């Protein structure tokens, strides 16, 4: 008797799973794929945007379920220009390793998630923008007087966050790296852990894009400082599914407008004022839609 009950329950579960699977399938195939994101956004007044959920001052999900940061504000502005009101935006977490697959599979329409435009990524993704040019910089404890420029990192303990290759620009020479300084790397699972280790003294420096560092410095005011010795250009682009040039042009137009009407300056100052970071308030040179 018992066996039959279990079998029945299992069959019911299998059926339910099968039904939901069918449901989501038909949704995917039902949407019209060939339409560009810009066209779709205009027609449906809805857009799915991939952002970071864990990057203070750039893309952060707050405990009350709202999103804040420079990236999210830029995304809101672009969505508005594409004809989507804020209520029509669906936010989705796009971690660094998910960004390309999400775009390729059409799970997100746009990615605005500290997404650097690189040669390696160009064949897979169409980039609009950049909407900001960040620079790789270094963050140290506020009482650190030894590390004043990037070359001071020699033999210092430098954080190597899993899933990020920022450290290579310091420890290796070209083509992958830049400075070729023999720093001791210390592994960490994320930049938040890097920051915790920096605070406890287990590390001497954290290096990555200055906007990300400024976000952390702002979150824990008075604990860290960014040394302001930039050594790379990181072109933050808006990731779009490969080949969708129409959307790319539309996003570029929105970015140009964001700078010309002063919104960019307001947003940058809102999120990064007081970090000592030099902010660029002129529209960056676009890379062109390919």
């Amino acid at each position, binding site marked *: 008797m018992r066996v039959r009950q279990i079998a029945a329950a299992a069959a019911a579960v299998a059926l339910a799973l099968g039904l939901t699977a069918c449901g989501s399938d038909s949704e995917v195939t039902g949407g019209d794929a060939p339409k560009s994101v810009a066209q779709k956004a205009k027609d449906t007044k809805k857009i799915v945007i991939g952002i970071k959920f864990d990057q203070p001052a750039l893309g952060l999900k707050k405990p009350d379920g709202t999103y804040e940061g420079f990236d999210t504000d830029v995304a809101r502005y672009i969505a508005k220009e594409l004809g989507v009101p804020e209520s029509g935006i669906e936010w989705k977490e796009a971690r*660094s*390793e*998910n*960004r*390309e*697959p999400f775009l*390729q599979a059409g799970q997100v329409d746009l990615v605005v998630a500290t997404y650097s435009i690189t040669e*390696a*990524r160009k064949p*897979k993704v169409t980039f609009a923008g950049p909407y900001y040019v960040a620079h790789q910089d270094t963050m140290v404890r506020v009482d650190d007087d030894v590390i004043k420029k990037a070359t001071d990192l020699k033999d210092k*303990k430098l954080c*190597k966050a*899993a*899933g*990020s*290759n920022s450290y290579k620009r310091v420890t290796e020479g070209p083509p992958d790296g830049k400075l070729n300084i023999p720093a*001791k*790397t*210390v*592994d*960490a*699972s994320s930049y938040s*852990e890097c920051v*915790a*280790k920096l605070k*406890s*003294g*287990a590390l001497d420096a954290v290096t990555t894009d200055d906007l990300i560092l400024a976000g952390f410095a702002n979150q824990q005011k008075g604990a860290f400082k960014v040394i302001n010795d930039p050594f790379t250009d990181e072109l933050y682009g808006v990731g779009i599914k490969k080949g969708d040039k129409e959307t790319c042009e539309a996003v570029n137009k929105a970015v140009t407008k964001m700078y010309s009407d002063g919104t960019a300056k307001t947003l940058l100052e809102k999120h990064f004022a007081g970090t000592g970071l030099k902010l660029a308030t002129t529209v960056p040179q676009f890379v062109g839609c390919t």
Partner: protein
Amino acid sequence: MDQLFDFSPVFDHHEKILEGFEATVRLAVVSAVLSLILGTILVAMRVSPTPVLRATGTFYVNVMRNTPLTLVLLLSSLCVSDTLGILVSDDPRTNYYWFGVFGLSAYTSTFVCEALRSGINTVPLGQAEAARSIGLTFTQSLRMIILPQAFRTVIAPLGSVLIAMIKNTTVVIVASYAEAAAFMKEMFDDYGASIPIFLGFALGFMVLTLPTGFFFGWLAKRMAVAR
């Protein structure tokens, strides 16, 4: 679609993948030895006639076994090493390697202990009574009569514990030691997350765990106690 089957990142960077697995093997081998030793000590405590030792052993096993490994590893690296400033080595990678091993062993040893304890329960009571009646002390009877038989009956479950431990090395990154899984994440960042890279690493783990399983299965059959 073509990117789904593009295995070139795997082949072009196989030395990087191997470097990741070298770290995994280093962690697994030393942790296996340490957790076997620590597990044996723990089981001796748990079956000992001294109430204080028994209570301590039970307490340790129940706390460790019911704490997520991630927390154990964080405790070992972030609290003990970073905050208390206890360093095994001045080189950060060596230092965090050892704290990773300590955390992993402290956790795995509780499972070794419980496997061994179930093995001790299969040794007939008469064996222990006979050992006592010829004048062996508790330690002697455990060492010469009970544990050798217990070990032989639990070889297969110990194999499972070992396989679980090999796979558990993937969370050692929270103790700041990068092994295969962390190398995979880095490759995801460099070349974009793709199924071929994932498959390459999954295969690497199978190369480690499948032979382990077969070896312990074979050993369990060979060493089985005939009763």
